[in-house]
């Protein structure tokens, strides 16, 4: 793959759907747009053709992203992006299938699809924008809302514990897992490139600001304050390994957290069975 190293600001405009109205529906300063820019630059640098990329999403603010992107797009039902994406990948194994999802979409209603996509290690790249809340529907708590945090459904503070999407994915069998934030955009872009080039299920969790709901209900301020707080609270994996769990409270460990290049991939394994059967052999 030709990798263009130079940063170019104008490539984004070439990948926006010409008939969509811009600016986007997202609130001013919403982290989703920052991730969308990084995703476009990552795809452009890898030199993928538009037709070989398919972006799939469910429902949510985050999930509106494929609507704006001029690739093959599927905007599906809430939580079901990975199920549709599995179908696309199975029918077109050479397609670069990218799922763009929110914390609610991926881990609440779509939690089962998520763990089973990880378990199968199907070659799909999932970008999970974690803003700790349901943005689109008005700020309800999600599976990543931290304990004690406020949302419209946890008005006295959340009594539940939060999911760690990266830990969940790794435990379920995903073979590439990384975390970044919308402050660390150049790192996020490189991580998305690595995830796209990885064969197997790859998860990039991006910590992002929903200042409109999460930020307002938890007094975290405007987009600038929230984005800067990601800078303050992010810890590189190497450093995190020298810290105690107490010191890591409220911090986001960023970097490539897990990578297994040896794990077998779902479509490959299926193809092997097909090949054996087509040749008249027995599967085992």
């Amino acid at each position, binding site marked *: 793959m030709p990798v263009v190293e*130079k*940063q*170019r*600001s*104008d490539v*984004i*405009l070439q990948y*926006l759907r010409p008939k969509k109205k*811009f*600016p*986007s529906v*997202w*609130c*001013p*300063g*919403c*982290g*989703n*747009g*920052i991730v*969308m*820019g*990084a995703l476009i630059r990552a795809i452009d640098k890898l030199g993928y053709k538009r037709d070989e990329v398919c972006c799939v999403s469910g429902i949510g603010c985050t999930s509106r992203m494929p609507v704006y992107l001029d690739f093959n797009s599927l905007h599906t039902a809430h939580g079901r992006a990975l199920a549709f994406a599995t179908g696309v990948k199975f029918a077109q194994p050479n397609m670069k299938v990218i799922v763009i999802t929110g914390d609610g979409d991926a881990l609440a209603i779509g939690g089962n699809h998520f763990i089973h996509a990880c378990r199968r290690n199907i070659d799909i790249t999932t970008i999970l924008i974690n803003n700790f809340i349901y943005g689109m529907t008005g700020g309800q708590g999600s599976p990543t809302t931290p304990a004690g945090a406020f949302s419209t459904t946890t008005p006295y503070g959340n009594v539940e514990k939060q999911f760690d999407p990266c830990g969940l994915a790794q435990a379920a069998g995903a073979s590439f897992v*990384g975390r*970044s934030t*919308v*402050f*660390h*955009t*150049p*790192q996020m*872009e*490189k*991580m998305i490139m*690595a995830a796209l080039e990885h064969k197997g299920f790859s998860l990039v969790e991006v910590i992002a600001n929903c200042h409109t709901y999460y930020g307002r209900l938890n007094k975290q301020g*405007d*987009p*600038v304050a929230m*984005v*800067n707080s990601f*800078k303050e609270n992010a810890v*590189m994996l190497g450093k995190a390994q020298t810290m105690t769990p107490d010191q890591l409270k409220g911090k986001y460990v*960023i*970097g*490539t957290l897990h990578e297994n290049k040896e794990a077998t991939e779902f479509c490959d394994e299926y193809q092997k069975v097909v090949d054996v059967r087509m040749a008249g052999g027995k599967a085992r």
Partner: protein
Amino acid sequence: MTAPTDAGEAEAKPAGKNKHNFSKDNLPLEINMGWCKACNLCIALCPTQVFEPDRDGKPIQARPEACTLCTICWVHCPDFAIVSKHK
């Protein structure tokens, strides 16, 4: 994975002339005011304070000579409203 480029680690050089020689007649960036939502991210994150907000809170390149083309403003613009004229 290569070490991340921490956006905030770009050196905060004092505003002043640099090798790019930008000026009011030779601006470093093109800003699409129609797409800009005045979120203030570019203005606040620019390490050399190139921008001033206009009446609506949208960025004006008030100190173009201080721009180092560090890319921070446009990689963080959620609305793709900033294009660097010098790639």
